[in-house]
């Protein structure tokens, strides 16, 4: 197969994954104005929960209908969002709204540290495996290369997630209110929007998306401690490139990072480590607030 | 008439489809007091913002002291001698009134702010106090900005702008946010201070009583253009101005 096509396919697969893990981060930042370092931990918890749920599904006789494991994965992510979303947002984050952005980064850093150990207390240090869903969708042969059908399912999932988020924000009443809050939370507060509920909802959605990213990744890796650390930095880069708080930005950022990383692995493997920072530095140099950031002139 | 201190020629500015300034040409003589009137969005503040460097005009000249300052940064224009105040007083909210003054003093001290000299040094505090006294706000010097009334904030805003060598002072709605019964005392205070310093004044104002009482000449803005440029009485009786700006019956 043509090298360019390989790069494109590899890049798209990676970008799909990147988008799912970073769109929740950008959404939470847009609404709550908190850059959530613990997003990586939520991703890892999603992976663990998914591994446990899928494991339980097969243990309870799921072999008869293995495709049900996909439902188990999504349920795992939902469960994480339902438990941890309210716990973190109502129990902790709401006390920090309106505080300095950077201080809030530290708050979530503390949450990240705590969750790392909590995961260890719940799941131990031994790895969890659930390969069944990964091989269930068969192979896809493109030229001389084999891909796993699951890879393309991840792209599809990313597109579904992207469309769902976009449609919810732009075509529903709730979504428009969320957009208003993203734009100006103080103003929407005076307009009678129940900002608290919007915050909780957005954080739960963000948690769900992080956990979903982990849940979808779980079948292709071994779920071990320390999973979250590596995710958070790339997700940050994607979100910063796209512009904090912008959903289309996260999509474009994911595509840029995904494809340039794939190109680097194929053409210049030694540059792979830097490529993300390189893309980010270039973008910020020309657009200091990222590609799709809301730029607002200040009224004086 | 004194020689011109500010000459504006054919300023143009559009924001997307909105024309914010169209063929703006004005000549302001030294020591004059000009006022700018017009409804919201007519282009008064845009004009002030262009002269003081907050907005870069699309084209046109702004001549001040033998050079075209159009497109220069606010910092450079301020250094040349055009200072301004703001619709919403721009103060440092976490500092006291005195410290706000000390900031202004430090910047304009010579040879510029020092890394070693204490900000609260005796001479600077004396100068700051003198300026605060000139604007009758010395009693508030130890208070933090959020505790101040609208009028005091406005005065402090202007006092800070006066810390440097000011040739032109542009006041953007000096009485907005000020209690009705404070408006005239504050304007008296400000105009006395500015006149005694020999500063040319250009102010934006909605209150026609203030316009007639303090300005020598009025520029009426409508739709990004200047539709009248004359003495207050002439401008306010101009039918076009009455229709578009003051809304008074013809």
């Amino acid at each position, binding site marked *: 197969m043509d090298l360019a096509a390989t790069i494109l396919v590899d890049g798209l697969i990676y970008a799909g994954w990147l988008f799912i893990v970073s769109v929740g981060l950008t959404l939470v930042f847009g609404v709550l104005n908190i850059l959530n370092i613990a997003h990586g931990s939520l991703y890892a918890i999603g992976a663990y929960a998914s591994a446990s749920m899928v494991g339980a599904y097969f243990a309870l006789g799921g072999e008869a209908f293995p495709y049900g494991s996909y439902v188990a994965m999504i349920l795992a992510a939902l469960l994480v969002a339902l438990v941890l979303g309210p716990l973190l947002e109502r129990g902790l984050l709401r006390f920090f709204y309106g505080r300095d952005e950077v201080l809030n980064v530290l708050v979530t850093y503390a949450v990240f540290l705590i969750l790392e150990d909590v995961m*260890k*207390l719940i799941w131990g240090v031994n790895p969890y495996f659930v390969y069944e869903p990964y091989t269930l969708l068969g192979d896809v042969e493109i030229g001389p290369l084999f891909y796993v059908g699951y890879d393309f399912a991840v792209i599809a999932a990313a597109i579904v997630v992207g469309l769902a988020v976009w449609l919810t924000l732009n075509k529903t009443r709730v979504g428009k209110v969320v957009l208003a809050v993203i734009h100006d939370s103080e103003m929407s507060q005076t307009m009678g929007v129940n900002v608290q509920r919007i915050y909780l909802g957005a954080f739960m959605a963000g948690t769900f998306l992080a956990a979903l990213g982990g849940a979808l990744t779980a079948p292709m890796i071994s779920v071990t401690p320390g999973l979250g650390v590596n995710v958070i930095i790339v997700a940050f880069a994607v979100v910063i490139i796209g512009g904090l708080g912008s959903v289309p930005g996260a999509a474009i950022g994911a595509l840029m990072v995904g494809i340039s990383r794939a190109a680097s692995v194929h053409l210049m493997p030694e540059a792979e480590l830097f490529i993300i920072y390189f893309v980010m530095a270039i973008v910020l140099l020309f657009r200091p607030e990222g590609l799709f950031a809301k730029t607002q002139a200040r009224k004086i | 008439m004194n020689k011109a201190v500010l000459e504006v020629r054919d300023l143009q500015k559009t924001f997307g489809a909105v024309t914010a300034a169209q063929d703006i040409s004005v000549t302001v003589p030294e020591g004059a007091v000009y006022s700018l009137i017009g409804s919201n969005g007519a282009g008064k503040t845009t004009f002030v913002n262009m002269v003081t460097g907050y907005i870069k005009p699309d084209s046109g000249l702004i001549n001040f002291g033998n050079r075209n300052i159009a497109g220069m940064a606010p910092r450079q224009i301020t250094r040349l001698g055009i200072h301004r105040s703001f619709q919403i007083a721009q103060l440092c*909210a976490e500092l006291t009134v005195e410290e706000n003054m000390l900031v202004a003093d430090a910047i304009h001290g010579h040879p510029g702010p020092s890394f070693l000299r204490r900000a609260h040094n005796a001479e600077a505090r004396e100068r700051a106090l003198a300026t605060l006294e000139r604007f009758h706000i010395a009693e508030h010097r130890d208070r933090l900005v959020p505790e101040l009334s609208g009028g005091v904030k406005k005065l402090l805003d202007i006092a800070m702008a006066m810390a440097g060598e000011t040739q032109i002072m542009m006041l953007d709605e000096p009485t907005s946010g000020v209690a009705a019964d404070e408006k005239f005392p504050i304007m008296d205070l400000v105009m006395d201070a500015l006149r005694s310093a020999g500063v040319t004044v250009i102010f934006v104002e909605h209150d026609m009583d203030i316009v007639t009482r303090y300005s020598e000449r009025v520029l009426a803005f409508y739709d990004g253009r200047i539709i009248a440029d004359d003495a207050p009485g002439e401008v306010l009786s101009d039918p076009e101005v009455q229709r578009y700006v003051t809304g008074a019956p013809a």
Partner: protein
Amino acid sequence: MRFNLLLAAVIAFVVLAAGSVILPDWAMFLFAMALAKGLVCLGIVGMMRGGVVSFGQGLYYCLGAYTATLVANNLGVSDIFLLTLLSSAVCLLVGMAFGPLLSSYRGIFFAMLSLALSMVLYGSLSKMSFIGGTDGLNIAAPTFLGWAPEGRPLQMALYIYVVAIVVIAGVLMRIYFDSERGLLTLATRDNELRVEYLGASVRNVMTYNYVFGAVLGGIGGTIAALALGHVDPEFAFWTTSGEFVFVAILAGSLSVPSVFVAAIILELVRSFSNLYFPNTWQLALGIFLLAVIVVLPKGLGSLVSRRKGSPA
């Protein structure tokens, strides 16, 4: 006032230096490391006063450490004064190169861009296997103007050296914070527009704070490298920088000494939680962090210093 500052400096020096006699070996080392890291955090506090927080101060911490190590290993320089001088000069130059670039970013963008820069250094060093890659390098014990102590005297000499640098840097930064430029920095955090319309350059203000932070970071890194005897790219990793930010927030921007107290507290908490909760030390540290942010929103400094006129 200046007399008071001098007196306070002398007292601080005497109290801290007394540690070289009172403290057991392990604690003296821990204090030395904490003070060295405190220097880096002092730089962040300087930036915090201007309203920005660097999440990439590991860049200079690492750069200083590597400069000292490479110079010591390749040019045979072992004098601690010379090494400190050289690495702070390198950091000064690099800071002057990046300062103007970063000075137009604020908030989360400043934090993230500075983080990206330090991660690039981390990545580059990790790739350079000829200088140890991720494993890093060792650096021999320093000499002090020709004197080459060993054992406890070495630890004492290093400790006193850090204490002296900390006191000098602390006094200089205090003078700077109280100066006209220092006030200008506070004004910039409050209202950049006002500062620009008073005729001062906000970028200038930001650049100076950044460059001072760079130099302090380099000095801190040099001392840490000499005390540890080892450097590795981890010095530039984001979690290292995150810890510096934590100390700076714990200290708050009101008081210089509280920066060093905060640094020592963090080291102690970490060291003991590591030993007593080997499996859950991150949990312990996270809870400590949250507790500090909740209980002391303005930092340790707010316990001892209240800005004149500020509401209680």
